[in-house]
């Protein structure tokens, strides 16, 4: 068995793996092991940290994997803006100790034939921990946005409060989005909410704006901004949330982040 698991660790991920099923196969073939390592991030008891990941237009696929350990009453807020022109995957594996809190606000934006994905596996390992994940994906041309979010509430992790909220916005007919919420709950006194929707820009809102003199590209920017703003509502620093929104909108308009 040991050799089998060693083998599977060596084997590059493929679409047969649940957590990689919507990743583009051609990209997966080209991944090498050095791209698949996990970075550790621990937050000590009672501490608060903020982690911001900006995935810029890069020459090759970008995989960022973060293994998060939250000690008792620790808090971590993560903010992700993914505007890559290549395959990009941001992955969090999170273990929450008693009374700790994990927050994710993530935005993916991409056109062409790029796939962006945010993948989370949040384990409520002890009682009284909370987690909130808000992901917004805006894609155009033949771009794809994926959110795979697993939440485990282990036996005895009572008073868990976990929420997961995904919305996809597709600007062109060829774009797509996949949402895979997966909740495994083994405690009986918990709150777990998840929601996923995929839609298009509101045509009537666009027309209403045009009727007031707002040109189509400005209307699109305003509506996309309103759509992605949810992801950064929890950012306390207004300047920082503004910076993240502007970065995301720059990606929308084709700028290199």
């Amino acid at each position, binding site marked *: 068995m040991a050799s089998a698991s060693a083998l599977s660790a060596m084997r590059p991920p493929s679409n047969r793996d649940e957590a990689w099923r919507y990743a583009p196969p051609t990209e997966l073939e080209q991944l090498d092991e050095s791209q698949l390592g996990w970075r550790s991030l621990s937050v000590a008891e009672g501490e608060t940290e903020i982690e911001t990941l900006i995935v810029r237009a890069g020459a090759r696929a970008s995989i960022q994997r973060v293994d998060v350990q939250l000690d008792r009453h620790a808090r971590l807020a993560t903010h992700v803006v993914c505007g890559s022109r290549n395959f990009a995957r941001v992955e969090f594996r999170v273990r929450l100790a008693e009374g700790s809190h994990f927050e994710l606000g993530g935005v993916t934006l991409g056109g062409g034939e790029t796939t962006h994905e945010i993948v989370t596996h949040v384990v409520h390992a002890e009682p009284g921990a909370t987690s909130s994940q808000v992901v917004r994906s805006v894609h155009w041309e033949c771009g794809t946005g994926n959110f795979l979010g697993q939440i485990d509430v282990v036996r005895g992790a009572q008073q868990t409060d976990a929420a997961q909220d995904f919305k996809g916005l597709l600007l062109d007919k060829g774009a797509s989005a996949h949402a895979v919420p997966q909740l495994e709950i083994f405690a009986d006194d918990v709150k777990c909410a998840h929601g996923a929707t995929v839609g298009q820009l509101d045509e009537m809102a666009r027309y209403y704006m045009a*009727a007031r003199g707002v040109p189509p590209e400005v209307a699109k920017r305003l509506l996309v901004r309103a759509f992605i703003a949810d992801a950064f509502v929890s950012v306390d620093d207004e300047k920082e949330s503004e910076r993240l929104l502007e970065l995301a909108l720059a990606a929308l308009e084709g700028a290199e982040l």
Partner: protein
Amino acid sequence: MLKIDNLHAEIDGKRILNGLSLTVNAGEIHAIMGPNGAGKSTLAYVLGGRPGYEVTGGSVTFAGQDLLDLEPHERAAAGLFLGFQYPVEIPGVSNVQFLREALNAQRKARGEEPLSGGEFLKLAREKAGLLKLDMEMLKRNVNVGFSGGEKKRAEMVQMGILDPAFAVLDETDSGLDIDALRVVGEGINAIMRAENKGVLLITHYQRLLDVVKPHKVHILSGGRIVKTGGPELALQLEEEGYEAVAA
């Protein structure tokens, strides 16, 4: 100022306007009345360039330009304002943000300098006051959570801020109580009753016309104007109904 000549239009292949002709000169307010399904809202949307409303014949000239040749946002910049029967909610976009973008886009298209944030707020406060709309409402998202009456007043605040040369108001009076109707009517007078401006007022009821006295009243039926008269025509309609008057 606005000249509609033999206009034909359809939606999804269904003919709605059938040779509608109408001229509104600068300084005039015209009312259009008509039974349900006559094409009143279609006329408003055709003038506003709403996608899906296809013009199959005729012409519309606005301030010397071919209106139908312009994109919706270009029509607004040219000075046309469309008051919506059902103002649209836009979650996540505040009135202030939306209207400042709209006004400055129009100013830019006309080669004018943009208004600063302070100048814009001053203007917005003044127009909100005119329509007795709480300035706090303008900080909220566009029409989200507004009552029917608040939406219509907000619509008129927008008109005040954008200060158009010509307004097409589609049932701006529907959903208003008597007091709000007076406020909105007086707002229309204050903003639009001027010798260089024009208004096309689409309404079902005489009551708004008591406040906004029209120069002419047209009856629209079957996609064309079937009768035109002075303000007395609206009174006669109220008394006798469309069937008797338009027949």
